């Protein structure tokens, strides 16, 4: 006699053992160390920290190793760990004007105070596979422009703001920031909340949406005012310690875009701002985020909402890759109870259909 399938528990255990084996790969080959991952796959680590919303290179490297290099899976691991951490409070706003720069470029000025600084960029490499990298290589030591601490050039947006050419920036002082990991989203969102969601949003999704704005689906005539990558200090105000103390430094990428101007009868024309900020080094993500930020400001700036990138509920509800991958992949779970209900209905409807056809046949005869 047929007996209902048993043994789910054992099957899961065995699947996990096989997964561990496949993750390790050929045991003859030495195992990856976390230092190797964080040192040599550093942009992957950056993405996991950024979309995982947790700045910890070591944990991100572990997550990448555990996820067999599947970055969304790694982001998921980091998020599920992060969420259990107690919340002591919120840091002071970081000051990107005080950044220790490694890269800083502006597309709106040929040259500017502090100069253009290319930094470690793929931009002008020829994309030719380099067979030398298949073996072990020792690159030339990098040139350093500054022996001592580098100067801290003014932000391009501050230069424009000095002339009143760009709209003023929001003023966050005097209140706690929104926190999308502690408060459920309620549409419509404040811009700061939206920016948080975008910053942890999926790079690929935001890239595609940002791209769509350039192709005419909500064009906003963007210029890269400035991209800067470097380290900033994170300060935390703890009353017990009497004032702000420095927790450490984080590497971030900031993109400030300058967009189509806007004026009204009362205010003269001004450029509008859009903003991208992510952990680590990822210009692609920071730029995409800024394009989306500008598109999503349509309502606030009195523009018609005509494209997907301008639709806040659409963009924000679908930008989180951990949510998206979970729900898409849950279709793998058994659904046979619901399927059974549909099966019954389809059979019933087919029977009714056949019955009607029979009756018509009889009537015709």
């Amino acid at each position: 006699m047929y007996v209902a399938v048993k043994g789910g528990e054992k099957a899961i255990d065995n699947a996990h053992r096989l997964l561990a084996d496949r993750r390790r790969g050929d045991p003859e080959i030495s195992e990856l160390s976390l230092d190797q991952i964080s040192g040599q796959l550093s942009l992957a680590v950056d993405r996991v920290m950024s979309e995982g919303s947790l700045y910890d290179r070591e944990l991100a490297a572990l997550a990448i190793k555990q996820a067999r290099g599947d970055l969304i899976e790694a982001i998921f691991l980091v998020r599920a760990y992060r969420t259990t951490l107690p919340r002591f409070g919120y840091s002071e706003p970081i000051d990107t004007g005080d950044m220790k720069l490694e890269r800083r470029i502006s597309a709106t000025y040929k040259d500017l105070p502090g100069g253009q600084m290319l930094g470690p960029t793929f931009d002008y490499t020829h994309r030719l596979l380099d067979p030398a990298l298949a073996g072990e290589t020792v690159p030339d030591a990098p040139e350093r422009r500054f022996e001592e601490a580098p100067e801290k050039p003014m932000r391009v947006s501050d230069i424009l703001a000095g002339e009143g050419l760009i709209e003023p920036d929001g003023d966050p002082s005097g209140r706690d920031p929104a926190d999308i990991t502690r408060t459920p989203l309620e549409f419509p969102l404040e811009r700061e909340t939206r920016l948080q969601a975008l910053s942890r949003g999926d790079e690929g999704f935001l890239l595609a949406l940002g791209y769509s704005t350039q192709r005419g689906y909500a064009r906003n005539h963007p210029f890269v005012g400035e991209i800067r990558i470097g380290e900033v200090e994170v300060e935390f105000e703890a009353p017990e310690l009497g004032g702000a103390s420095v927790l450490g430094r984080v590497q971030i990428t900031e993109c400030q875009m300058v967009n189509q101007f806007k004026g009204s009868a009362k205010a003269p024309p001004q450029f509008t701002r859009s903003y991208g900020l992510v952990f680590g080094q990822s210009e692609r993500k920071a730029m995409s985020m800024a394009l989306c930020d500008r598109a999503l400001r349509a309502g606030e700036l009195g523009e018609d909402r005509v494209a997907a990138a301008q639709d806040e509920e659409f963009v924000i509800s679908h930008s989180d890759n951990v949510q998206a991958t979970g729900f898409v992949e849950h279709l793998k779970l058994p659904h046979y109870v619901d399927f059974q209900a549909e099966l019954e209905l389809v059979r019933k409807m087919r029977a009714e259909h056949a019955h009607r056809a029979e009756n018509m046949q009889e009537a015709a005869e």
Partner: protein
Amino acid sequence: MTLQDTGLAAYNFAYLDEQTKRMIRRAILKAIAIPGYQVPFASREMPMPYGWGTGGVQVTASIIGPEDVLKVIDQGSDDTTNAVSIRKFFEKTAGVETTTRTGEATVIQTRHRIPEAPLKEGQVLVYQVPIPEPLRFLEPRETETRKMHALEEYGLMHVKLYEDIARNGHIATTYAYPVKVEGRYVMDPSPTPKFDNPKMDNCAALQLFGAGREKRIYAIPPYTSVVSLDFEDHPFEVNRFEQPCALCGAEGVYLDEMILDDKGGRMFCCSDTDFCEERRGEAESVSASNGEIV
């Protein structure tokens, strides 16, 4: 923090920290106070994927105590992979006793089914919910659906049922069949087959619904009216199976269809595996029965 410090020992009882549990319990209390109303809550990332029961797991984690006895089912079965995985999660993180017996459980987490055996006072049934908004597929915007609930504008829901009848001769919704709770809020019962809808009405147990990805919790307090939407001349009906369970002979229960071979051979047996096993156990030990009912 170094990695060595972050072993399982660093996790709280039932995984979630107490701050988070308090937040979820507040949402649950609000949900119980407004039956059928979807309360937003700050859903956490859980160590299982969204869509795999994170809402139910968070609700269970927030209400479970060391004395509780937990049962987890998926598709009515205790032994489907996801049920096993969630049960093991709570065994590991909360160390609670688990059971497959509906009568013995104090907390039952479920996906897609309501147990056949009537639930009792003091029990809590926790549903995993993928899409909590019953109006979602008629109106994709949250801002608009919240307004529709607030103003009790449910005409659109009946438009959908009307269309079903006009097209198929009957209402063609077989699962996630919308209900009205306590005469006020239209609610999605999660993708349980509509066969289970009548069990929600005037139920002795507390019913809690958790949607992790969509960040909503809602509830049906014990002994609350739950009415499936319908028309007077096309009343709500549950699907009936033509044959009894092939294993235990039960009638009027929900059956799974098992494909036996590639020649069209199939059999139908209880979707609620515990119900089926208990019945078969009773049948075998009729003489040994001392009248103890569980």
